[in-house]
């Protein structure tokens, strides 16, 4: 009892000398804390948000002037130009999508235009071309298509006819791809 401290001191410790690393190949330290805040997967529609449930099938066009949660099947076009569109985990969309912000948890087959950002969560599946101001893609998400990062003012335009040549952005890793490039350069 009284010798507890002494016993702890005498406990053998592993050597702290780091192992020699190969020149061409080196181990990676444990990943740092997540650069992005981990948002809970929105498996259910948040309160106060317009929602289309998982048993609903829509063919045609949706135009929303508020945030929209879509968890059903949809074929056509979805436009939420100034708000967030969340595509739920049960959703199956064959649609072209245009929104300010798009969060994908389900399956989408079609082109997506998100003026601000698109967030592909784990288990999301997107086949189509993306045009956006920024993109976040989680490990486990499946994406097939092209990604075009558009710059600030261009991303806000609804249907650009001629795109200016994109300017290179700093190579520093940014949590949100394309977000850094919207900043003015000096």
């Amino acid at each position, binding site marked *: 009892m009284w010798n507890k401290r002494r016993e702890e001191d005498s406990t053998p410790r592993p050597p702290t000398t780091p*192992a020699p690393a*190969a020149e061409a*190949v080196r181990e990676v330290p444990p990943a740092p804390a997540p650069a992005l805040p*981990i948002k809970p997967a929105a498996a259910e529609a948040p309160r106060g948000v317009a929602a289309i449930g998982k048993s609903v099938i829509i063919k045609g066009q949706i135009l929303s002037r508020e945030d929209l949660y879509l968890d059903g099947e949809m074929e056509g076009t979805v436009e939420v130009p100034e708000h967030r569109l969340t595509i739920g985990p049960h959703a199956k969309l064959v649609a072209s999508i245009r929104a300010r912000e798009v969060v994908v948890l389900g399956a989408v087959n079609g082109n997506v235009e998100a003026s601000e950002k698109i967030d592909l969560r784990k288990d999301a599946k997107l086949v189509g071309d993306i045009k956006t101001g920024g993109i976040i893609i989680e490990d486990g998400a499946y994406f097939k298509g092209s990604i075009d990062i558009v710059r600030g003012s261009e991303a806000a335009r609804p249907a650009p006819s001629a795109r200016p040549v994109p300017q290179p952005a*700093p190579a520093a890793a940014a949590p949100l791809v394309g977000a850094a490039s919207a900043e003015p350069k000096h």
Partner: protein
Amino acid sequence: MNDRWKPLTRADPSGGSRLAQFPPQPQRAQNSRGGSQHPVYSRHSNGLEQFFGQIGSEPGLRILDLSGASQANIAFITNLGHKLYSEDLLQSLDQAFGDGDFFANQSAPARVEEFLEQSLNFPDDHFDGVLAWDVLEYLAPVLLKATVERLSRVLKPRSCLLAMFHAEERAESIPAYYYRICDGSTLLLTLRQVRRPAQFFNNRAVEKLFQSFESVKFFLTRDALREVIVKR
């Protein structure tokens, strides 16, 4: 043998008994979202450095990444001002040929054509660069030949392709990786699975594979992964 170079002792889904040398004892690091843990390691890549050196510095180029979409590759390539095309060719391979004999299925001309139409259906002279990574090792000869021809078609003249080939000659199973770009000359490799390659490529076989290209350049490395830059 140094403990850091032990062979990987993961169950081999393809039933192979001999495993390729896995690079250093991989550290099990959490991914950025706290998800499942996979062995990862980073390596200097002269091939990657050459690739981005050769495709040019002007923005607006089209780059095809055959390793699947990842935040790291998207960030790096789009921050250079380029447009990224993403395709997970290994996953598409499994979906297209996974029923029955994986390699025998890749020899059926109709299935090969269908696969190419679904996975590499791009206009001619479309890309300024292709990051093929190690996926060509898992293609049986008939599909491999057709795929390389298709890649040659979709690449612009004098543009580049980066590929990797394991150097272990008698390995029955080799590690397949996710390749993530850390910077212009460093890659982060995450073990994806251990699987049987379709064939072994020595330097002569690689040269023959890309004989229709203008040049083939090898980068010898200290681990068991050879890097190859081919210019169309």
